[in-house]
């Protein structure tokens, strides 16, 4: 597939897949912010509490958004058989699904910008640059995990939840401060706990991006080595 051709189909992908999913995510945000509007109007919280409120809401809703935006990139096409006509055209599955992932990645930032806009309009003006970087970290790591799972399972987001829970349980069971095993577990597992942080150090960023990009590359490798018709 020519680069220009792939770029041109990006618009179709946005209209067909990513755009509607961003809208759904924003509708969920609006549905939650609307009742808040009345609560805050009657008793406005102190500014410090407001910051925590924005941060807390974003953590919850961005996790939901990452599932909405990334799920089924490969799995849905495979289960429904849509890949058959796409990939009979001069199209590489790596290009096709890889650009769909990148589009979802960009959509995470758009989602957060929309979240802040909706929150500012309906509750109270708020802007946190840190939330945009938090959305990127979440998209890269959790999005990469969903993408990799999408190439090998039919229900990628369910498996991602199972993995996320498992990782959290292991971290809680083996804290890094208490034992060598804890330090090993902490080093080996994907750094899911960092995506909730408001600001990350350079090392933490490298850890998150490294895992996310690694998982994305694993997904591409699976796409290259395992035909889509194989169960």
């Amino acid at each position, binding site marked *: 597939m020519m680069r220009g051709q792939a770029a041109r189909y990006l618009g179709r992908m946005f209209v067909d897949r990513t755009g509607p999913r961003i809208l759904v995510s924003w509708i969920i945000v609006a549905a939650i912010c609307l009742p808040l509007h009345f609560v805050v109007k009657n008793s406005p919280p102190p500014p410090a509490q407001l910051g925590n409120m924005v941060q807390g809401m974003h953590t919850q809703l961005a996790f939901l958004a990452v599932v909405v935006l990334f799920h089924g990139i490969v799995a849905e096409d495979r289960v429904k058989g849509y890949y058959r006509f796409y990939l009979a055209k001069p199209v590489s599955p790596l290009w096709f699904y890889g650009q769909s992932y990148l589009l979802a990645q960009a959509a995470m930032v758009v989602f957060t910008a929309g979240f802040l806009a909706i929150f500012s309009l309906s509750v109270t003006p708020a802007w946190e640059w840190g939330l945009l970087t938090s959305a990127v970290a979440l998209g890269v790591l959790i999005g990469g995990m969903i993408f990799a799972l999408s190439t090998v399972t039919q229900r990628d987001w369910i498996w991602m939840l199972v993995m996320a829970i498992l990782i959290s349980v292991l971290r809680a069971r083996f804290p890094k401060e208490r034992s060598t095993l804890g330090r090993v577990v902490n080093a080996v597992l994907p750094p899911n706990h960092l995506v909730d942080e408001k600001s990350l150090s350079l090392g933490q960023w490298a850890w998150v991006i490294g895992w996310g990009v690694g998982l994305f590359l694993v997904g591409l490798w699976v796409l290259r080595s*395992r035909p889509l018709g194989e169960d």
Partner: protein
Amino acid sequence: MIVFRNLSKTYRTLLGRRPVRAVEEFSLETESGEIFGIAGPNGAGKSTLINILLGFLAPTAGEVTIGGLSPRAWVESRGVGYLSELVAIPPAWRVRGVLRRYALLADLPAQEREARVEAVIQQLGLEEHAGKRVKQLSKGNLQRLGLAQALLSGSDVIILDEPTHGFDPLWTQRFRDIALGLKRPGRTVVIASHNLDELERVADRVGIIDHGRLQQIAVIGARVTGSQARYRLVVAAPSPAVGEAFPGAELSAERRGEEYLLPPLDLPALNAGLRRILEAGVQIVAVVPERSRLEAVFREAVGADE
């Protein structure tokens, strides 16, 4: 053009129990410029072969090449006109939009794209459905849309899996004209179908597969004419000359006195016998193959007559 060499495909369950051999030691070479039919009973391995040919499945052993390249290398560089047995298109898309999307992916030049979309809409009679969503289409119209997207680009390889599935008799007939119109030097058309009559009308050769193996290749108009088949001979009035020309001919139970069921004959024997009864003054009303010639070869190949 397309070469299958000792191809095998075995499906295995997660635990490796009860492996299913879908294709075994399959070797075949199609020629450029021909329409090649693939016929076989349900579960014979037709769809598996096509999936391997598109690179959607990996063979367990052996290899497939298209124009000397691996299937994916060919498809990703040139594309294939492909209609799958089950047409899967997102249901919310509109017919014209579907074709525009696939035309974009098919790498058609921008200035030709719209004209090509309109041309296939017209060719497949989808004008009145062009604004409808895919979910609003009947089975037959969905199949026509699937065929339309396969014909969008002038690919050198066209693969149609059960192309008339869901078609009414009119469109089944029209499909034959479309299929014959696809034939051109440098292009290979592969059609997998249950419909032997359809294959006999459009294909140059038909590979008959059963239990994943290539049982026979029938060359339409040559190999097929060499086989024996039974015919029904309808005459204006019964005559002993028929029995003399065709020893073993029986009067039909339904139309006694007018119709004979002839014994299995090849074409030269049939024509010699017909000449004799014409010389004896018998008026022939019709000579009808009891089954199509390809069907006779098919039944012989898959052992359906045993």
